[in-house]
C-alpha cells in the first residue's frame, strides 16, 4: 500500500496559474466545487501527463475536498493516470467488435514490436500500452486510439509502421525544440488534425 503524503504545501506553490484558472473556470460553471474534481484531474493531467500524489493533494486543497475522496475518484476512472505514462499512450480496443476482427494479432504485434505488456512503458519513455473498452469505431475494427487520434483498420503489419512513424515524429520534435526542460508530455492535448 502506498501512503499519500498528507503534509502539504499551499496548492498555489504547486499548480500553475494556468491550471488554477482552468480549474476555477470549470468550477464556476458547476453547482459545487466537488463536481469539478474530474475536470480538474483531466486539466492537470493534460499539463503534466499524469496525476502524481502532489498533484492530487494540490487539487483536493484547491477544491476544498479531502485528498482521500479525490483519490477515490481518480482511481475509479480509467482515463486518469495515477502513474507516469509514456509520451504516447496507446489505448487499444479489446472489446467484442475488435476481438472478432483480428485484435489478437494486432496486440501481439504491438507487444512484440515494443517489447512491453499491458500497463508497461517502453524503456525510452515513448510508449505506454493500455487496453480500452469499445472505442465506438467498431465498423473500422480493429482500432486503437493514441492522443486524440483513432487508428482504424489495424493489421499486425500496419500497426508497426504507425508506431515507427510516431516515434520518428517525436524524435524530430525533441530535436527541434531541444529546450533543457522540455519534459516529454503525453500526446493527449495534441490538436486534432481533422477539422
Amino acid at each position, binding site marked *: 500500500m502506498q501512503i499519500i503524503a498528507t503534509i502539504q504545501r499551499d496548492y498555489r506553490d504547486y499548480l500553475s496559474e494556468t491550471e488554477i484558472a482552468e480549474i476555477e473556470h470549470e468550477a464556476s460553471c458547476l453547482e459545487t466545487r466537488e463536481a469539478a474534481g474530474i475536470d480538474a484531474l483531466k486539466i492537470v493531467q493534460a499539463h503534466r501527463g499524469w496525476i502524481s500524489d502532489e498533484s492530487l493533494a494540490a487539487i483536493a486543497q484547491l477544491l476544498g475536498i479531502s485528498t482521500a475522496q479525490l483519490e477515490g*475518484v481518480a482511481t475509479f476512472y*480509467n482515463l486518469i493516470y495515477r502513474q507516469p505514462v509514456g509520451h504516447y499512450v496507446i489505448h487499444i480496443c479489446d472489446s467484442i467488435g475488435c476481438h472478432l476482427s483480428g485484435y489478437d494479432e494486432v496486440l501481439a504485434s504491438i507487444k512484440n514490436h515494443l517489447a512491453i505488456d499491458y500497463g508497461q512503458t517502453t524503456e525510452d519513455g515513448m510508449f505506454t500500452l493500455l487496453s480500452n473498452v*469499445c472505442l465506438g469505431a467498431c*465498423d473500422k475494427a480493429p482500432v486503437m486510439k493514441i492522443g486524440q487520434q483513432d487508428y482504424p483498420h489495424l493489421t499486425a503489419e500496419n500497426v508497426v509502421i504507425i508506431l515507427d512513424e510516431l516515434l520518428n515524429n517525436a524524435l524530430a520534435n525533441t530535436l527541434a525544440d531541444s529546450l533543457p526542460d522540455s519534459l516529454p508530455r503525453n500526446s493527449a492535448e495534441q490538436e486534432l488534425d481533422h477539422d
Partner: protein
Amino acid sequence: MTEATLKPLTYLVNTAKPLAIDDYIHAGGYQGAAKALHQCTPAQVLDIVKDSSLKGRGGAGFPTGVKWSFVPMFAADDPKAPDNKYLVCNADEMEPGTFKDRLLLEGVPHQLIEAMIIAAYTIGANKAFIFLRGEYHLAAKRLQQAIDEAYQSNWLGSNIQSSNYQLDLHVHTSAGRYICGEETALINALEGKRANPRAKPPFPQVAGLFGKPTIVNNVETLSNLPHILKHGVDWFKQVAPESDAGTKIYGACGRVNTPGLWELPMGATIREVLYEHAGGMKDGLKLKGLLPGGASTDFLLPEHLDTPMDYDSIAKAGSRLGTGGLIVLDDHNCPVAMVLNLLKFFAQESCGWCTPCRDGTPWAVEILSRIEHGQGRLADLDSLAQLCDFMWIGKTHCALAPGAVEPLKSALKYFHDEFEQHIDNGCCPYKGSH
C-alpha cells in the same frame, strides 16, 4: 417523402464538416425548437411527445413522454418549486458494438442542441448537461463550437428567441468507465463522485442531479424531438406504421462486408440490415449468430433473420433491441471465446457495489477461460447457469449484471454443443480456423 422525412436524424449529417448554425437554420433547423417555444406550452409539448410514442434509444426502450411526466411541475410563483431542474443528455456510448450516437454528435451537433432546448423547456429545466465519453474528442470539440454559436445566436442563454425561456448548456467530458452510462451512476459522475449507481427510489425524475428533478435521455432519443415537433405526430407514426414509431439508426460490426450505420424505418428486419446494408458475411464465412443490440443483449441465430428490429419483435425472439447495433458472429470465430471476451468486459466494468455482480462476473470469466483453454469440466456448465440466476434482474442495483447474463445464458442455450466440444476435446476446436 423526402430525405428530411425518410432519414430525419441523419440527412443533415456531415462527418467531415458539420453544418454551422446559419447553414443548419437554412436547412430547416431550429424550426422544431421555435415551434415548441413560441406555439406550445410545456404541457402541450409533453402531450405531443407522449402521443408520438417515442421510446428511449439508450437501450431500455422506455417511453420518453411517460418518463418526462414523472417530473414535478410547478407554477412560476409556487414556493415549493425547486430552484432548478436538469436535463442530461447521455452521450456516454460505451456499449461494445455501438457507435451510432457518435455519428449524430460529430455529424450534426446543432440537432442535439435544438433537441435539448425542446426537452429542457418541456420539463422546466434551465440548465442542461451533455455527458460525453472521454474518448470522443472530436465530438467534444464540435459540440463546444456549436454551443458557442448557439449562444451567439441566442438559441442558448437567457430569453431564447424572445421566448422568456432560459437555458444554459454545459458539456462534461467523462474520464472513462462503462458504468457512467447508467443514468444514476452518470449523475454521481456529474457531481464529481465515483460513478456507482444509486439505489432507487427516489428516481432521478424526482431527485437526481444535486438532488433536483432530472431527466436523462440518450442522444438518439433526443435527436428525434425537433422532427416530431416540425413534422407532427402522425408523420412520426407513419414512418413505420407496422412497428414502433419513427426511424432507428441500426449498425453492424464483425466480419461482414460493409460494417456501418444506417437510419431505417423502425422494424427493419435483421436480414435487411445484415444483407442489404452490411453486405452480408465476408467471403468464406457463414453467419453463426448475432447480438442484436450491443454486448448486453441475448444471442439470436440465423433462424431469427426475419425478425423485425423493434422492441416487441426482438423481445419475442428472446432478446432485446438494445442499441440496435448488430454484433455478428461468423463460423470461424469461437462462440465460447466471444462470450469470454464479453464477460471480461462486464467483470472489468462492474462498479463493485453488489456482490453478485462484483464476484459473479469474474467467476464466470474464470470458468469460461478454463473451458476455452481446454481445462473445462461438464459441471462448469451448471455453475455458469447458476451464476446466470445469481446475477439476474432484481438481485443487483443496476442492469449491468443482467446485461452480462443475457449473452452468457443465451450462448449456453444456443451453443451448448460447442461448449461440450471444448470440454470433451480438451481444446478449442476453432483454434487456427481464422
